[in-house]
Each structure stands twice: as C-alpha cells, then as structure tokens.
C-alpha cells in the first residue's frame, strides 16, 4: 500500500499562477500528487504543475482536468519518482482565476511503471447532490485520492474510511478539498457532504502500490528448472 510521506497546501485569489511552499520528499518508490481547484473563468483549467521550476523542472502528468461548464474547475496531477529533497511547486493556470486551492501530497511505496489507475470525474452545475465519485478500478491495496472544488464553505469527507488531506476554505462559500481512502473501503466511493453544494467539480484516481518482484528460486530449484 502506498504510504503518505509529506504534504502542503496553498490558497489564493485573483491569480494566474500560484506556488506551493517547498516541502521535503523522501523514501523509496515515490510519487507526488497535486490536486488543484479554481473558480471564476469559464475556460478549461489546463494547468501545468512543475516542481522546482527553472531547476529540476519536474513537470507533472495530468490525471484529470474538468470544469462544470460554468465557474468551477478541478484537476489532478502526478509525478513519478520526484527527486528527494525540498522544492517548491509552481502551478500555472490558463487564465486569471478567482478562488484557488491546491494540495500537494508525496507518497512512498507506489508502483512506478503504472502509478495510477483510471481517473474518474464528475461535476454539478446546480441542484444539491453532494460531490460523489466511485473509483471502480481500485484494488484492496490501492489508495484512492480525490480533489473537489465546491461552492460551499463547510464541507466534510463523508465516506467511512475517507481521510481529509485538505479542507481549504478560500473565500465565502468556496472550498477546495482533498482526501484519501484505502481501496475497496466503502465501495471505493469518495464523497463530500456540505450545506448546499450547488456547484462543484471533482476528480479521483487510485494510486497503485509497489509490489516487490518475486525472489529468485533457490539454487537447487533453479538447477532443476534448467535441467527441465
């Protein structure tokens, strides 16, 4: 199972880029995962997320990026085997945005060749349904991570076993949330409850665990295998 290593968050208003303060990444079979939420512009978010821009230039891969078609955006980004040490993360947005929230988490014990499963996204442009996503390809030892950007000032992770990594109230009634849950808990449902939730955009994906390769057979058995 992937294990959380470290994290940091950032919020802002009236920006076209935002930088997350440097935090230390360590361990083996590492993964960096960053969730971003914004509101304001009707254009797609299309962020770039780069750790140590101008130095290491570790440019993250986009897992998801969606808008609810009106004001709210959610995106998720990851980088495999980030360099150990402490570096800031630059998030560049497609246009000036209003309320912005982001959560960066680092992980160890992650499968390096195929670190994440198939992303799931959802959004609402009205109504009152809570942000809810089901990550159906999550295995028992996976960790599901989600990012939500909600028109609500009081949200809480709702599913049993769901751990809040961030619950950032950015401005009146705008919140960015990030949470994680062990695979196959609560049917792999990631859900946030709140007061109104009239608009939201969210995404989620399973982080795959590193599995040790099987040890080589003992010498005697290997010899037998060679002899057929």
């Amino acid at each position, binding site marked *: 199972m992937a294990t959380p290593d470290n994290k940091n968050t950032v919020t802002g208003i*009236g920006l076209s*880029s935002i930088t997350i*303060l*440097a935090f230390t990444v360590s361990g083996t079979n590492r993964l960096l995962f960053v969730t971003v939420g914004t509101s304001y512009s009707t254009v797609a978010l299309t962020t770039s997320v780069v750790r140590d821009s101008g130095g290491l230039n570790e440019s993250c891969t986009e897992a998801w990026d969606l808008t609810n078609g009106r004001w709210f955006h959610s995106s998720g980004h990851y980088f495999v085997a980030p360099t150990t040490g402490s570096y800031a993360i630059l998030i560049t947005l497609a246009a000036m945005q209003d309320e912005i929230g982001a959560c960066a988490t680092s992980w160890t014990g992650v499968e390096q060749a195929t670190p994440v499963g198939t992303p799931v996204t959802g959004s609402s442009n009205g109504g009152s349904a809570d942000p809810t996503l089901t990550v159906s390809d999550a295995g028992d030892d996976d960790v599901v991570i989600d990012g939500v950007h909600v028109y609500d000032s009081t949200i809480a992770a709702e599913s049993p076993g769901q751990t809040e990594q961030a619950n950032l109230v950015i401005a009146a009634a705008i919140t960015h949330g990030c949470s994680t849950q062990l695979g196959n808990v609560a049917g792999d449902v990631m859900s946030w409850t709140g007061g109104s939730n009239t608009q939201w955009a969210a995404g989620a994906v399973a982080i795959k665990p590193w599995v040790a390769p099987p040890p080589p057979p003992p010498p005697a058995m290997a010899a037998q295998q060679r002899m057929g």
Partner: protein
Amino acid sequence: MALLIDHQSINVPAGSRDFGPVTIPDGLAQVTLRLARQTTATPTFWAPGVTVDLKSWGSLDGGATWQQWLGFGASGGILIKRDGSETVESWVSCPLPPGAARKIRLTAIVTGGTLVSQLTVEVV
C-alpha cells in the same frame, strides 16, 4: 496576528524589486502575501497589462540558508468576481513550517509597465 509589511506603498518599474527580509514571530503558523489591485476606488493601482511574479523565500535558521516559499503570478486591471464585485487584492496564503528563527523575503518581478500597489505580508 502580525503584519510584517502593512500596506506598504510600492512603485516598481519593469524589472525586479526585493523586500525584506523580515523576522517571523515565533508560534505563528500561516503566512499571507497581498498586493492591492486596481478597482474603481483605486484607479491608479496595478494597471492592465502590468504583470507581477511575486516570489518569496524563507529561512528557518535566521537567514543563513533560504528555500523557495509561496508566491503568485497575476496581471493587473479590474478583476470582476462572480457576484459582480471587484477583487480588492490578489493574495496567496499557506501554512508555515515551524521554527524559532524564521525569516521571509520577497522579490516582485514586474513586466509590462510600472507596478503601483500596496504590499502586505501577514502572519497568524
């Protein structure tokens, strides 16, 4: 709460300008950097076409070593919010690493004209 820089008037031609370093009081855990925007009430502030890349660096050892902290990029002009009101300030905020000898310094990199604004650095 402490205002390390309190609505300091700034006038920065295209180029860069450094601010600080300033000492962060012990025990405070969140920092916010603010730049006043152009609004109907402040028409001379941060004109359209002027972009700012505000970077900060932090030290946990009294200024002996530094690492990059929070920051933002933004362009000027009046920014209308969803509710029709004007955005008064562009700002960024994040938790601070703990420590007893913390300092912060800033660099504003300006392009497209002169940045006229007010800078605030707040910790809580």
